[in-house]
């Protein structure tokens, strides 16, 4: 699962069969140096909106459990983050 910031919504008038009724969000994952340059399109049923930080899980099983097997997207918002903490001392030696 990844942390990311919701940076926008996405609408499409022509969609694949499973997509109607879903909210599609543009999510910018965080990386070690702040927001990354990558954007992912995630399906949201929790009511997240731009400006919120969310937890995005990936995979077909996650998709089946949350929004149904018919949805053709495997990035799903599973939580809206209230707060997160990064310990600078612990982070300093990791990931290098």
């Amino acid at each position: 699962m990844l942390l990311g910031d919701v940076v926008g919504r996405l609408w499409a008038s022509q969609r694949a069969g499973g997509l109607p009724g879903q909210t599609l969000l543009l999510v910018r994952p965080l990386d070690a140096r702040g927001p990354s340059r990558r954007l992912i399109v995630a399906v949201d049923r929790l009511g997240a909106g731009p400006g919120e930080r969310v937890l995005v899980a990936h995979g077909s099983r996650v998709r089946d459990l949350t929004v149904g097997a018919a949805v053709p997207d495997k990035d799903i918002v599973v939580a809206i983050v209230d707060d997160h903490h990064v310990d600078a001392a612990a982070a300093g030696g990791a990931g290098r």
Partner: protein
Amino acid sequence: MILGRVVGEVWAARKDARLGGAKLLLVRPHAWYEPAFATGHLVATDEIDAGVGDDVVVCLGQPARLSRGRGDDNTPVDAAVMAIVDRVEIDADGAARAGAAPGIHRRLELPRGLQPPRRPEPPR
């Protein structure tokens, strides 16, 4: 499974009901997985009470769901902490050599805390 370090925690009140009260840890995979973890972090559920600063083994995908003590596959997560690492032994030169393993293309510096003890000089 991957090896990483717990660098923080995540709190969320509004979440998929099946996540329940699972503790969410922010884990930074150690560097030799680059570029598989382009974001430099992942969030994993934790049921074995790992803490910030611990090196942990994180399982990805379906096994992460099965780990949650329920024996079913019905929690919408894709990463879980499986073990808290007490000690790692590593062949620093061998493991970090470019081409030593898939995804390792350049010589890596070991993360702090995973440095192996210096070997004594061999007797002459």
